[in-house]
């Protein structure tokens, strides 16, 4: 049963190799591999649901010496989300890249990215996290530069340099940790870490690296050009998965490994950066001339929300309130993953159909593609946090936690952020009502729009109504074996 953990990593890795060797059959290999990953992810979630945390010591060496792969509630749920989103984006990519040569370049990199994301989510070793972060970074940059335009290359280059800087900071943190505690395994670290300068410096460096990679406010400038100029399926993966996975690591480190050294002051500082990110990201999204740029800035804003949860989780004592807040941050991450990828795929359909994605001249295309406009509306609802979406429940819990811990300052931030989000979403949707001639038939660009529609529906309807089970699944005990606290 423990060898379940290996498949989500090895399947896409092997498929990536095959996709390079048999370039012409990239679509088939990619589709099969993504499907296989989805099945293994679902099976993994099922077995974590049955018997809590699953771990395997690779090479048979006990974790101190060797590397352990671990899957608990948090990582298995994210793994499932990555698998679903990747499969859907993969299907869309076969239609998006009509040029077989570019597709032949896309598939090996794409499957490698999928393997890297799964490896990062399952890794239980701090240095191994560095290598997986690096692998995610490089594949993301290579995919981003697939577009070939000058802006794409400049953005990819800056994304690479900044990403490497982040990785170096992370590695410096790993050095200090290894120097102080002599082990690289996260669970071992969690039990041995003390509240002293070495831990603070290590935590600061690792968090700094991860903040750069998850594009939190001051270090967000590389994200909008990179996500806006990458091909649509790639920018969907970048915004929904790559940036999200960096936040997952912050969550894992803060709540699982360094809980002893977690001072409310540092959590507040992150929360503050998150608040500024929310306001700044939403404001810039409001003024973005292009749809994909709007979506990219919206990612910066939504990540700000995620970081708002940190001071709240730090402030809440163990108990139902904290479990609710923790479930909320996971639900927020999941819903944003689905909604943002749907938004980018929708933008991709519009860009290919209209030749551009400038919002002002969107009217005609928005009417010709009613399903895509509906997708933009659904993902917009999820971004604002209006009821049928999962984000609404997450924001409710966020506000509830803010009231519970008495941290009132986050409430106006969330309120204004939601209104700004409403402004930039409905600015786009307003164009769908512009007067016009014939309305396109329901599924004008059928197969291209279905993946986006599926993702948007998951974000709003499924995660909105059926999210109740998430909290049960994530109950705190499953998060770390034996509860290191």
């Amino acid at each position, binding site marked *: 049963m423990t060898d379940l953990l290996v498949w989500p990593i090895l399947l896409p890795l092997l498929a990536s190799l095959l996709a390079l060797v048999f370039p012409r059959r990239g679509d088939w290999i990619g589709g099969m591999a993504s499907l296989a990953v989805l099945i293994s992810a679902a099976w993994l979630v099922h077995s974590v649901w049955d018997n809590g945390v699953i771990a395997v010591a690779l090479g048979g060496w006990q974790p101190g010496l060797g590397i352990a792969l671990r899957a608990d509630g948090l990582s298995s749920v994210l793994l499932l989300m990555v698998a679903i989103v990747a499969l859907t984006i993969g299907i869309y990519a076969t239609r998006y890249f009509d040029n077989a040569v570019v597709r032949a370049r896309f598939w090996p990199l794409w499957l490698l990215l999928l393997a890297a994301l799964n490896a990062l989510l399952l890794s239980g070793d701090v*240095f191994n996290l560095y*290598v997986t972060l*690096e692998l995610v970074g*490089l594949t993301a*940059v*290579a995919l981003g*530069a697939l577009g070939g335009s*000058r802006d794409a*290359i*400049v953005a*990819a*280059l800056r994304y*690479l*340099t900044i990403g*490497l*800087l982040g990785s*170096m*900071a992370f*590695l*410096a943190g790993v*050095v200090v940790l*290894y*120097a102080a505690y002599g082990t*690289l395994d996260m669970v071992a670290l969690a039990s041995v870490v003390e509240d002293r300068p070495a831990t603070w410096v290590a935590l600061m460096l690792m968090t700094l690296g991860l903040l750069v990679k998850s594009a939190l406010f001051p270090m967000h400038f590389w994200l909008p050009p990179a996500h806006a100029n990458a091909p649509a399926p790639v920018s969907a993966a970048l915004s929904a998965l790559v940036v999200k996975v960096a936040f997952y690591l912050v969550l894992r480190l803060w709540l699982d490994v360094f809980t002893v050294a977690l001072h409310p002051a540092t959590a507040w500082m992150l929360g503050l950066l998150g608040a500024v990110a929310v306001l700044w990201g939403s404001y810039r999204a409001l003024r973005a001339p292009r749809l994909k740029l709007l979506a990219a800035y919206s990612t910066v804003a939504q990540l700000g929300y995620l970081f708002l949860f940190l001071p709240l989780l730090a402030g809440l004592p163990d108990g139902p309130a904290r479990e609710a807040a923790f479930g909320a941050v996971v639900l927020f991450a999941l819903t944003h993953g689905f909604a943002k990828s749907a938004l980018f795929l929708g933008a991709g359909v519009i860009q290919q159909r209209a030749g551009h994605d400038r919002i002002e001249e969107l009217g005609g295309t928005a009417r010709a593609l009613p399903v895509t406009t509906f997708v933009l509306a659904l993902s917009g609802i999820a971004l604002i946090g209006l009821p049928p979406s999962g984000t609404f429940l997450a924001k409710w819990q966020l506000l509830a936690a803010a009231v519970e811990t008495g941290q009132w300052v986050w409430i106006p931030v969330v309120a204004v952020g939601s209104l700004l989000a409403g402004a930039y979403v409905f600015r786009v949707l307003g164009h769908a009502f512009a007067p016009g001639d014939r309305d396109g038939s329901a599924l004008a660009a059928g197969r291209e729009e279905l993946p986006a529609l599926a993702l948007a529906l998951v974000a709003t309807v499924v995660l909105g109504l059926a999210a109740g089970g998430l909290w049960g699944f994530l109950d705190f005990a499953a998060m770390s074996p034996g509860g290191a606290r």
Partner: protein
Amino acid sequence: MLATTIIYGFAGICLFVLGLRGVLLHTTALARILALNVCGAGVFLLFVVLAYRGAGMTPDPVPHALVLTGIVVAVSATALALALARRLREIDHD
């Protein structure tokens, strides 16, 4: 053994900080890649310093393996960065 650790440890920290500063201050891609490699060298030096256990003792092999991995990762990142930079120059020239 203490003197060696302090000297090279401090050298490692200096390299790391120099590299970091270089990346933030330079604008051309090549200069930034150089600075990144220097930054990496600094971190690797720290790793090896904490692996060093005096003249007589055999050093701790784990950091050595990690640094080896680090060097290879650094060179592949450099290769990708240089390829992107070259592509950029090609686009600018035609």
